[in-house]
């Protein structure tokens, strides 16, 4: 038998590694990493190696289905009946047509970023005219990192520069060890960095994959990252006097003078913020061409520099006081701060490709952990500040910003805006990026997700279950009538308390969803549309590593088009063609084309033409030729796999080339907060405005208070496994085998000493009870967890009959989370992800 190898892109998570699939007689027999692909350089993870089991999953949906049981519920049998595509599309089309005059009644859950679907559904939502499009899957992840990154660095996400970093602090993330974008790339970079001597400090309640490999694991009480970061700032700025003064003076708003009400002192004529020039002892606007030495400490008649206010503010967080909050010993915090400050090498430079650049080989990285809190924005922001005050942003050795800039096949680069500050992030696709500056002016809500009263947030879907409970309370006179969704299991992964989510999904009269397998979200569908495996699909956008979450530094930029390795199974259709057909049926196809042309930068002669019909491959072929030239059509990508370009210094280290200042003081939080108070007052809502402050303050989560009061003993937190991506793949037998062999995956972590004191044994089954749910769990005792913490991995706890391998295994962490306004961050809309629990037999 002849063996053939086909190059394509992995779709087992959002990264998009290059793979080669071994084929014999049309059957896929094995998957290997593509050694010539810049993303993974031949590496593969367990998820990718298990991909064939998703393709050949006998429980896959391979024909449209309709429910025959009108009753809906978490454990209600929908009574599926197979139907034709014609009937399925007629039904979905007619439901969409029925709300055509009031399109905001449509909600699209569009998170499916292994391929094109999220971009195509984004265009569909806009052409249809609904604001209710959710392009994110998690109730926490990304809620803060993206809006912070776009106004404090310029790109989509952050990434330590493992090529040059010598001291890396990870807070609430297992970066490059068990998680994160560009995974199989940064994994090797992390190993190389540690081998050459980079010190790795992991601050995390759990000493998991990252903590166990770190030089130093620092257990922290959940929800206290703000205090840790502010205290680190205090030691650096006030005790050690280490900060990059030149950077702060000229590349941040540190010298902007602040008046007594916390607002900038502004030039009466221009309205621009003013600074004090120590060189000639004059007050000037920040961009005065005569400005030489803007003061960042001291005071003038006009006000005090914002840096001076920051220094004064953080002085409240001595390591001794902070120890009471975080449980991190004061001496440990001082040790880390001292080492971090020394490693930052303030004033040092390096030369790369003949270009002299600042050299700051120390940085702090954070991700999901700090974001998932009631005060999530301010849990994260001071961690970013640690990099900014060191001048360690977008320079060699510091923290870099993913996808921020590029020169091929297009030019994109972040730009300044309001008050001279970074405002417009870099983005290869001309789509609005999530950012928290300068924010929107709040108004009375029209939207069911209350976006109007979260003026600094980029995502809002966590509010949908809350407004569905009582529209009138929020001044809304309608509810959602139709929902379309991707195969993502949003019921288990996008919200919290299952009772609340169940009521939300039941409140929507018609739901149609794509499905690879019938997960718990699909149990609420009226119509199911089968979705191909990634090994059967064409996707121009194959994962995120080429676009917004690629490897940082000077590694090559690249693009790969995903191609199928097997024929599309009978009964399946390409999702792009299904979306176009629905757009045609509701009369928005030409508008949809306008938006696809914009999204993918399609210009003549490649732009989609009104009145014409296209297949998925034709659209992808046009896009490939438009982006990369006539010679690089779809066929070229099918033969060659990936196209790559070298990055120059300006693309890799954008900091010195950025024509904008970075913020250390969030004046606009005061402005947006004041405006919001007025709107909320008119609405008669009880609202927490405590986070609308220009300088972060640590405020406790409800779980912190509950444990302090003795109402509960533990705080439960979630952590990631390197072989599990959300709940995607949980029904894959190879991934399940890994989880079963690892007692940590389906078990619940508890500190061994604490467990023994309570009479719990390793492997024992006990009750775990949160304020909203009680479940039986199997304990795994370990030294590697904070004594007040319970650790829960992955996204397990399935019950859908369509996932027979995953059923009844592990715990669904989100279902433990109280889901109400009290647990929503009023800046970012993140749902609090630390929850008070008790354990008992």
């Amino acid at each position, binding site marked *: 038998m002849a063996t053939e190898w086909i190059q394509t892109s992995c779709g087992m998570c959002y990264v998009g590694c290059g793979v080669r699939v071994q084929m014999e007689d049309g059957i896929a027999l094995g998957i290997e990493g593509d050694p010539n692909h810049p993303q993974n350089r031949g590496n593969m993870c367990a998820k990718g190696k298990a991909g064939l089991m998703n393709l050949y999953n006998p429980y896959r949906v391979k024909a449209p289905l309709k429910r025959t049981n009108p009753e809906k519920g978490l454990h209600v049998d929908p009574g599926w009946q197979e139907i034709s595509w014609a009937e399925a599309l007629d039904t979905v089309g007619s439901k969409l047509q029925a709300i055509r005059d*009031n*399109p*905001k009644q449509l909600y699209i859950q569009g998170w499916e*970023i292994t391929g094109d679907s*999220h971009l195509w559904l*984004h265009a569909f*939502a*806009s*052409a249809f*005219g*609904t*604001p209710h*499009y959710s*392009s*994110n*899957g*998690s109730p*926490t*992840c*990304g*809620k803060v*990192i*993206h809006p912070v990154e776009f106004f404090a660095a310029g790109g*989509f996400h952050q990434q330590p520069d493992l090529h040059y970093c010598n001291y890396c602090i990870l807070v609430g993330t297992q970066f490059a060890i068990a998680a994160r974008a560009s995974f199989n790339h940064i994994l090797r970079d992390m190993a190389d960095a540690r081998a050459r001597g980079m010190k790795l400090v992991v601050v995390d309640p759990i000493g998991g994959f990252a903590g166990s490999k770190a030089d130093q694991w620092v257990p922290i009480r959940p929800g206290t990252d703000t205090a840790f970061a502010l205290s680190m700032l205090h030691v650096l700025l006030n005790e050690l006097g280490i900060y990059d003064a030149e950077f702060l003076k000229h590349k941040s708003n540190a010298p902007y003078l602040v008046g007594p009400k916390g607002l900038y002192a502004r030039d009466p004529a221009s309205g621009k913020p003013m600074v004090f020039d120590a060189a000639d002892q004059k007050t000037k606007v920040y961009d005065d061409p005569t400005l030489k030495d803007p003061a960042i400490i001291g005071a003038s008649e006009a006000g005090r520099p914002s840096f001076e206010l920051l220094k004064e503010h953080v002085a409240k967080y001595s390591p001794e006081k902070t120890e009471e909050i975080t449980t991190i010993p004061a001496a440990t915090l001082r040790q880390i701060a001292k080492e971090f400050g020394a490693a930052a090498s303030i004033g040092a430079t390096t030369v790369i490709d003949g270009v002299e650049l600042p050299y700051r080989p120390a940085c702090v990285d954070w991700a*999901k952990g700090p974001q998932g809190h009631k005060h999530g924005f301010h849990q994260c922001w001071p961690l970013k500040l640690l990099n900014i005050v060191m001048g360690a942003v977008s320079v060699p050795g510091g923290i870099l910003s993913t996808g921020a800039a590029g020169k091929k096949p297009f030019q994109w680069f972040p730009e300044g*805006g*309001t008050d001279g500050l970074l*405002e*417009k992030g870099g983005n290869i696709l001309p*789509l*609005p*990026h*999530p*950012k928290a500056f*300068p924010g*929107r*002016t*709040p*108004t*009375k809500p*029209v*939207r069911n997700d209350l976006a*109007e009263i979260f003026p600094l947030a*980029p*995502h809002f879907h966590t509010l949908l279950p809350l407004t569905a409970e009582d529209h009138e309370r929020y001044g809304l006179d309608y509810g959602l009538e139709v929902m379309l969704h991707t195969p993502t299991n949003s019921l288990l992964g996008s919200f919290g308390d299952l009772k609340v989510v169940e009521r939300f999904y039941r409140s929507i009269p018609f739901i149609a969803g794509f499905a690879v397998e019938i997960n718990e979200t699909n149990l609420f569908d009226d119509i199911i549309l089968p979705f191909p495996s990634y090994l059967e699909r064409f996707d121009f956008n194959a994962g995120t590593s080429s676009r*917004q979450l690629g490897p940082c530094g000077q590694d090559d930029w690249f693009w790969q088009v995903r191609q199928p390795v097997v024929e599309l199974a009978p009964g399946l259709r390409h999702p792009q063609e299904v979306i176009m057909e629905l757009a045609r049926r509701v009369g928005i196809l030409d*508008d949809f084309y*306008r*938006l696809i042309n*914009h999204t993918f930068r399609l210009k003549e002669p490649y732009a989609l033409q009104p009145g014409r019909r296209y297949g998925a491959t034709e659209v992808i072929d046009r896009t490939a030729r438009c982006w990369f030239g006539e010679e690089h059509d779809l066929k070229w990508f099918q033969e060659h796999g990936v196209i790559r370009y070298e990055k120059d210094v300006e693309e890799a280290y954008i900091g010195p080339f950025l024509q904008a200042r970075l913020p250390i003081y969030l004046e606009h939080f005061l*402005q947006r907060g004041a405006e919001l108070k007025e709107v909320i007052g008119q609405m008669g809502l009880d609202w927490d405005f405590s986070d609308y402050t220009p300088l972060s303050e640590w405020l406790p989560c409800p779980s912190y208070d509950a444990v302090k009061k003795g109402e509960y003993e533990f705080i439960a937190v979630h952590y990631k496994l390197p072989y599990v991506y959300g709940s995607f793949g949980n029904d894959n037998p190879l991934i399940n085998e890994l989880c079963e062999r690892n007692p940590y995956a389906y078990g619940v972590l508890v500190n061994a000493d604490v467990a023994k004191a309570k009479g719990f044994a390793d492997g024992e089954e006990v009750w775990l009870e949160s304020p909203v749910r009680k479940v039986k769990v199997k304990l795994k005792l370990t030294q590697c967890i904070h004594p007040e913490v319970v650790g829960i991995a992955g996204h397990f706890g399935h019950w859908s009959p369509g996932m027979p391998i995953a059923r009844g295994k592990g715990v669904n962490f989100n279902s433990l989370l109280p889901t109400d306004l009290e647990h929503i961050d009023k800046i970012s809309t993140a749902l609090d992800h630390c929850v008070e629990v008790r354990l008992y037999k």
Partner: protein
Amino acid sequence: MANLTFKEPMQQANTVRVRVRFMGDLRAVVESRDLNVSLPQGSSVGDLLGALAGRYGDPFAKWLFTESGELHHYILIFVNGENIQDTGGVSTGLAGQEDQVEVIMLPMFEGG
């Protein structure tokens, strides 16, 4: 399709007629897909937006413009298929008698 004349009385010869199509999030406040607008000869996209903001008030105006009066980064405007970012921004003129203006508010996109 709704019809709208912003300045009356007005001689037909001194006006341009513009067809406006709303897409994206703005539909939620405009509650109409299309609108016919008459504007004085020589009007620009900025004039059109100002007129629309006057007609629809808040939240339309605040979804469209920042506090300092700039267009929000998520607002896209095409005049006869051309993005105004390539044709002079809001000062782009509305010269034709059958100008098709698309005012699109895209949702902020992606993340986590």
